[in-house]
């Protein structure tokens, strides 16, 4: 039976090298076609009338005027009379017209009468929420927290930590181009993190056979966890297409709707009490927390994060708000948990007058099975940022501080799973020597195409450009949705197995010619040879020529024999910031990340994932907040002017170190997209606290909040 395990380090031709992404030229040249770029013959433009109120009942809808507007081809009520709208942007009517402008004009001709109902859109001040918005708190106890806290001689810190609601802000909004190819079949070009599954989901909604929906997507302009479902607009636009005689309909959300309804990362606020012995040994944790992800339920962030304290008492309460529904946001709940936990830990260290690095190391065994990984990573990160040279006691100001600009350092550790998802692929070896991998996966910009090419080329000992990669279609062998950092493990494992099986079939085909048996052959640098004997070889092309016109095809699968991918990572980040204490503006000086993820397939795109997570982290730490207006219930910053993202010069100097090689490669491939997203809020918030001597409780760390914290001087 075939051996699939990854090649030893010294034998790797491509794996672990820095390889440029294969779709780079398409992206930099503007040739890459995203679904938003698809133009189809006779295409109509869809628009959706959305609720202007955060909570209201529809009294009546009159679409008659809109139906008569020029160019309008189909109008459909999504949610009609008596429907209770739950957030601003909730869908009411969909329509399609020949031009986008006509569609917009028609939208404005729809008359809706509403009965306004009371709403709640913010939950930072839980005390102000009406009882009806408060769900029953979930409670959890480990060990004997009350007894533990009562122990004599403890140092106890109490504090408040918070994360406001933010949104995904994918640059390509949610949406699709949809059409009826004939009266039974639908073709969609969605912007989706789940190309294999989205067709079936649409088919279920339309009560039609799954195989009658064809979904295709070459590129996607960002997802971050928000683009799994087909969504109500996917379903309604497909219905509109039918109403319009099957004509293609393009619908992508306007930016304000994208920000308001297509992604809410839940808030998380917590009052924390945490205790340690005088020597810094962590003892007990207590927290009372709440958060909101719209009207629905959400889970509690996993705090105390990473640290498994022996005694814990926790409550978490969901506050229902009239906000767009929550969607998974890159490592759901972990960044929030990190801010709450690591903030409390650094504050406790400050109270103990301990260097938080020493405090973290002192308690490192409480991190569990990866304690040694964290130890190595903490040491590496400390070296990269010059922790020992630059860190000073809280409020003392790191070297370089002036009267008005205070510098500080902070750190955080994190974790994530990233176990592989299910995945199938087909491997084709053609008679002309070309190779193709076909898989119903999607490349979110993480390098999926590139890593598939690397794995197949590595497994067959070929140059990269011999391998064609075909993905992004639900007619290809199914592969899991890209979420939870499960993709790289799933796809690389399946590709590896399929490639090895295909290679063995090729060996069987050529072995007789070479006067040997398949088990005596190996592939080395574009040749098939007798194991260890380069004199008995034939080129890859010569070998494939034996196939004639019938290619070898194999199906590679994950899961399968041999463990090629696992889950569970650590990760450490340290931030160095300067805070202008007169303006409250925080600037990043330096930010370092040390990250493990098992065996790395492409070091270049792997590092890019970490850089990207850190930059997204700077952005959510300093700038991002979905600002909801209490009076109107609307998102006030539903644009990119006041929903602020960091620019190229706002991020400081970034450094990434990937933990690879012995001790790491053996874990197999592990997902990476999410873990490095988890620590930035905590590390940056801790750095700011270190710089200015007081905690700014809630992220984003805006000038107003920094100045307020300074004015309070840590009191209240």
């Amino acid at each position, binding site marked *: 039976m075939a051996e699939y395990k990854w090649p030893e380090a010294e034998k790797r031709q491509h794996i672990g090298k820095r390889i440029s992404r294969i779709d780079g*030229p398409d992206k*930099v040249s503007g040739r890459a076609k995203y679904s938003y770029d698809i*133009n189809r013959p006779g295409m109509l433009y869809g628009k959706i009338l959305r609720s202007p109120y955060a909570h209201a009942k529809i009294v009546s809808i009159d679409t008659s005027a809109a139906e008569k507007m020029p160019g309008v081809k189909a109008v459909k009520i999504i949610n009609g009379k008596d429907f209770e709208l739950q957030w601003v942007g909730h869908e009411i009517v969909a329509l399609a017209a020949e031009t986008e402008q006509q569609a917009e004009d028609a939208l404005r001709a729809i008359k809706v009468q509403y009965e306004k109902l009371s709403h709640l859109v913010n939950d930072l001040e839980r005390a102000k929420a009406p009882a009806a918005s408060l769900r029953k708190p979930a409670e959890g106890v480990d060990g004997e927290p009350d007894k533990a806290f009562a122990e004599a001689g403890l140092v106890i810190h109490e504090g408040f930590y918070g994360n406001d609601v933010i949104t995904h802000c994918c640059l390509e909004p949610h949406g699709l181009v949809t059409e009826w190819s004939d009266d039974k079949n639908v073709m969609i070009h969605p912007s989706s993190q789940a190309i294999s599954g989205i067709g079936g989901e649409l088919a279920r909604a339309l009560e039609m056979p799954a195989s009658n929906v064809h979904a295709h997507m070459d590129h996607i302009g*960002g997802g971050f966890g928000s683009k799994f479902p087909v969504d109500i607009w996917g379903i309604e636009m497909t219905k509109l297409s039918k109403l319009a005689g099957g004509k293609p309909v393009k619908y992508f959300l306007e930016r304000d709707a994208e920000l308001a309804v297509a992604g809410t990362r839940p808030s998380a606020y917590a009052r924390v009490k945490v205790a340690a012995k005088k020597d810094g040994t962590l003892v007990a944790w207590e927290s009372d927390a709440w958060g909101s992800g719209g009207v629905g339920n959400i889970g509690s962030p996993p705090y105390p994060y990473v640290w498994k304290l022996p005694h814990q008492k926790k409550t978490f309460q969901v506050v229902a708000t009239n906000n767009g529904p929550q969607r998974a946001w890159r490592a759901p709940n972990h960044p929030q948990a990190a801010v709450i936990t690591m903030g409390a830990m650094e504050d406790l260290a400050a109270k103990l007058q301990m260097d938080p690095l020493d405090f973290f190391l002192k308690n490192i065994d409480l991190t569990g099975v990866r304690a040694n990984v964290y130890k190595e990573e903490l040491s590496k990160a400390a070296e990269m940022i010059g922790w020992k040279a630059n860190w000073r006691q809280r409020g003392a100001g790191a070297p370089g501080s002036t009267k008005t600009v205070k510098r500080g350092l902070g750190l955080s550790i994190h974790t994530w799973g990233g176990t592989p998802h299910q995945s199938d692929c087909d491997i084709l070896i053609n008679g002309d020597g070309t190779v193709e991998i076909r898989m119903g996966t999607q490349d979110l910009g993480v390098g999926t195409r590139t890593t598939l090419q690397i794995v197949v080329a590595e497994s067959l000992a070929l140059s990269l450009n011999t391998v064609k990669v075909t993905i992004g279609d639900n007619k290809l062998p199914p592969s899991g949705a890209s979420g939870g950092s499960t993709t790289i493990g799933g796809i690389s494992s399946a590709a590896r197995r399929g490639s090895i099986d295909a290679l063995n079939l090729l060996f069987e085909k050529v072995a007789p010619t070479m006067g040997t048996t398949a088990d005596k052959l190996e592939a080395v640098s574009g040749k098939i040879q007798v194991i260890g004997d380069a004199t008995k070889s034939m080129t890859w092309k010569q070998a494939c020529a034996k196939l004639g016109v019938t290619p070898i095809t194999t199906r590679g699968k994950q899961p399968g024999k041999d463990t090629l991918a696992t889950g569970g990572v650590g990760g450490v980040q340290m931030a160095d910031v300067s805070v202008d204490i007169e303006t409250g503006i925080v600037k990043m000086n330096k930010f370092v990340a040390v990250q493990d993820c098992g065996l790395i397939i492409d070091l270049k795109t792997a590092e*890019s994932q970490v850089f990207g997570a850190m930059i997204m982290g700077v952005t959510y730490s300093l700038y991002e907040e979905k600002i909801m207006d209490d009076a109107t219930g609307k998102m006030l910053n539903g644009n990119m002017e006041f929903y602020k993202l960091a620019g190229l010069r706002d991020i400081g100097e970034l450094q990434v170190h990937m933990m690879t090689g012995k001790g790491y490669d053996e874990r197999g491939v592990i997902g990476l997209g999410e873990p490095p997203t988890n620590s930035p809020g905590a590390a940056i918030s801790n750095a700011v606290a270190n710089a200015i001597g007081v905690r700014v409780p809630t992220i984003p760390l805006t000038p107003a909040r920094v100045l307020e914290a300074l004015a309070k001087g840590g009191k209240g």
Partner: protein
Amino acid sequence: MSKSDERLIETTNDTSGVKIDPAVSRRNFLKGSGLALSLPLMAAETAEAAEPAVPIFGPEKVAITLTINGKPLKAAVEPRVTLLDCLRNDLDTTGAKRVCDRGTCGACTVQLNGKPVYACSVLAIEAQGHKITTVESLATGDTLHPVQKAFWDNDAQQCGFCTPGFVMACKSLLDKHPSPTDEQVKLGTGGNLCRCGTYVGIKAAIAQASAAMKKGGRA
């Protein structure tokens, strides 16, 4: 391009008959004709004949010609249609992306007479007579422009949706400042935003492209 071509021909024919209406009156202002002469709005019927007439276009579709990447392209659009939407919807030139659509994010960056602008904030009709350069014109076949090559080499793209706009902004920066200072980089890139977080790669790409273009790479 199938669809755009079809519609283009149709609509261009539709409006080919547009001509200056000598009997213009204020009614045109409200009702609109394809093209009319200007009149003071309040001085309804008493046009002063002395001044040369200013043609008024729209609000219906107007036949326009845009010079895009050196080629004259025809479209028929209402005056309210932006250059970006005209490029994407009418001319199937989709390199420039619609993201914020309010002149903030830079994903729609094109050059107008060699200078970077937000195509979402220019009306298609006012872009006539100007030289419009889009990202599609930079590469020659498979040969990438040094800025594009540098973006690829330095992994300055992830999802890639901001990339065409960023490439145009960085090319514009280097067109103007072949060896940009820190301040010039700040002032040359502050109009573009990326969500995936590719700035480390973009910074490196600017440095690489600057060096390559000075060495005589194609500018």
